């Protein structure tokens, strides 16, 4: 056995309990709704909690850069809890995407420069140029939309083009940008105040995940890593991002199922709790089956990536497809179980449904992952 497990170990269960208790104090339904519809990009008090009390922001960054050095399954536990609480803010963009891109690029100097501040929560960062609706629906391949060219012999690179669907770009202090170069995929570092950078907020169905369009007009940028730093970082993100999003989706799905079960036990109709009707019971049993199976697959996929198992690539597809479907299934079942109250603005159920819809499309639709699985044969 490689040490890859589909179960959480005791330490992970302990971390889960700690996070759930802490987040439940901050991420109530009204708070989520206020944040979703307010002007604030995210809740600074909550960010501070993640940083100080919970030490989450640098959780998976290497220890040499001031991070916690946690393996991916531990990061997955954190993401599940954040997903359950419908956390809205720059965690995934800074703590997952940027961290993994920089580590993946192999650029130790940039790592030493950026990651300690990022781990302390002082530097917010995100990744641009990961196109997530490419022909195969998967991130990265052919999906780098900014283009770079070396200028004037002084070593400055300039980025030109448009990167869509950038997560939490507002407020970010640094951007890691994937861009096509003559030598292949490059990975570059820039910042929002660079000349030629323009960040536009996109409207969105998912009220708790802010997406932007970033325009580059010959914006100066520094390359990360050696010549193949870009493709190495991209290859890493192509695997890690879908599974990390899957972990977040599992948390959202579990929350939806629990809310539905809770309602079904309390709500009476026709003289009985509605949860005693087979129509309700059996639907929720089917949701549980999907959620539990997707969770086991996601936990396993995180371990397979951490251990670089031979089935890691397969399990990325399995986890993202299964978790996206399970979350969508659970959010739909929650609204159906709630009935009219679930159709109101004030009930947070729709925020989860919106998140489930956006997550399905990001880092590969379930259908795209399934086609990859269907084509590949055994391993």
């Amino acid at each position, binding site marked *: 056995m490689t040490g890859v497990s589909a179960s959480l170990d005791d330490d992970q269960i302990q971390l889960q309990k700690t996070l759930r208790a802490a987040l439940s104090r901050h991420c109530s339904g009204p708070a989520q709704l206020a944040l979703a519809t307010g002007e604030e990009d995210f809740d600074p008090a909550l960010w501070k909690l993640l940083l100080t009390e919970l030490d989450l922001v640098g959780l998976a960054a290497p220890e040499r850069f001031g991070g916690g050095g946690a393996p991916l399954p531990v990061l997955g536990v954190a993401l599940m809890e954040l997903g359950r609480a419908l956390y809205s803010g720059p965690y995934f963009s800074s703590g997952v995407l940027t961290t993994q891109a920089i580590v993946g690029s192999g650029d130790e100097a940039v790592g030493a420069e950026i990651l300690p501040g990022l781990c302390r929560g002082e530097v917010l960062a995100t990744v641009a140029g990961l196109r997530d609706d490419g022909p195969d629906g998967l991130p990265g391949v052919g999906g780098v939309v900014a283009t770079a060219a070396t200028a004037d012999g002084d070593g400055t690179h300039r980025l030109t083009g448009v990167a869509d669907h950038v997560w939490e770009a507002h407020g970010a202090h640094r951007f890691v940008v994937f861009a096509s170069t003559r030598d292949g995929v490059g990975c570059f570092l820039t910042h929002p105040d660079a000349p030629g950078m323009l960040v536009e907020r996109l409207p969105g169905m998912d009220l708790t995940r802010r997406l932007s369009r970033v325009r580059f007009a010959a914006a100066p940028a520094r390359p990360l890593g050696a010549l193949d730093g870009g493709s190495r970082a991209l290859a890493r993100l192509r695997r890690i991002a879908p599974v990390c999003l899957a972990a977040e989706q599992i948390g959202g799905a579990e929350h939806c199922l629990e809310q539905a079960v809770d309602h079904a036990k309390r709500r009476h*109709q026709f003289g009985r709790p509605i949860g005693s009707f087979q129509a309700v019971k059996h639907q929720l049993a089917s949701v549980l089956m999907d959620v539990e199976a997707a969770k086991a697959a996601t936990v396993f996929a995180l371990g397979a990536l951490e251990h670089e198992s031979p089935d890691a690539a397969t399990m990325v597809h399995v986890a993202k497809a299964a978790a996206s479907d399970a979350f969508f299934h659970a959010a*739909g079942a929650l609204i*159906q179980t709630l009935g009219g109250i679930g*159709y109101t*603005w004030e009930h947070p159920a729709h925020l989860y449904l919106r998140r489930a*819809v956006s997550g399905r*499309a*990001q880092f590969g639709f379930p259908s795209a992952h399934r086609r990859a699985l269907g084509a590949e044969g055994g391993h």
Partner: protein
Amino acid sequence: MNTAGAAPTGGDRDVDSDGEMFRARVRSLLAENLPAGWSGIGALSDREQEEFRTRWRGLLHENGLLAVGWPIEYGGSGLSPREQLILAEECTTAGVPQGGLNDNFGVQMLGSTLLRWGTEEQRRYYLPRILSQQDIWCQGFSEPEAGSDLAGIRTRAELVEGRWVINGQKIWTSYGHLATHIFVLCRTDSSVPPHRGISLLLCALDQPGIDLRPLRTLTGEAEFNEVFFTDAECPADAVVGPVNGGWPVAMSLLGFERGEAVATLAIRFRKDWERLHHLAVDPEGPTDPVIVERLGRSRQRVEELRCLGLRAVDSWVAGRDIGAESSLHKLFWSEWIQETTELALDVLGMEAVTAGSDGLRGVSFPAAEAGTPNTAGTWADYFLRARAATIYAGSSEIQRNIIAERMLGLPREPR
């Protein structure tokens, strides 16, 4: 102005037994009054829609087409079910409404119910006022605690000194903010089994005992209201049908709700489908076969719905009760709308996720209005609205129970 005289006479109607003369008349009215390039009311802005509805309602009224099934003496045109269906089909095909936003409640639901259950005085008093818009009606049936169990309503009415005094809360009152009156289902006897102590009361909204609050739905819009009754009053004779015998009255009122939907929904859904097909299928290049097949399934189901509807219409025109078959129809279309709007999300991909705020405008449930712009924003909004389809007007769980018990004869559950 009541122009019932402009309708074909009884003699003409015998000749026009298949309604084709009436259809031609409706078509020419539409052709004369709709601008060139008209694609449906959904293409107009909110403000334009409001103006159009007002003008259009007036035109229908002038031509005796607002309450075609009502007898002539109450301001209707006394036309047959077939003619009602033809009018509905033609208006739906043209993408125009059959009245104002509240006429579904005033004309179709309350009006038809008064014709079956009301007293002669009630008919003479209320029906003309509905047509003239002196009274604009909304519905007070649903309650937060009752949910799908309508017999479980708690809003109470007591007869005190010759007036009904109403206390309680209603919810999901569409267009209540546009209404002057509400028909409200109340418990008038708590000492008997739930179905036996219910009455349907007619109540003015403009009184201190009524508080109407907008209810925002998950799409962010507020076409629904909550209505709070605190010692609200209505006259003793403002009860439709027997006191405490309101359950069958309420059931027949619900039967009139969107009665012609069986005939018109597939027409509307096919317009939706054509919009989606236009988005998904590039006539020049190849389309993903998975999407093509799902589009095909959506089309298949629209056509099946159309045929189910045609069959129900045959029954209706022949004077047979559609009965539980309306549950089959409801279940079918509610699944269609969810399946198809989910397909739209998959067709649109990230476009749906970053859709602008151009939601559906003035949608009349459950389908989008004809002419609705074919944008990512309208489809994203449609997807969200479609969540309600399997909940409202009898949840899918309730519909399956009705189908199983009344159409298949399967036994009821033990209580």
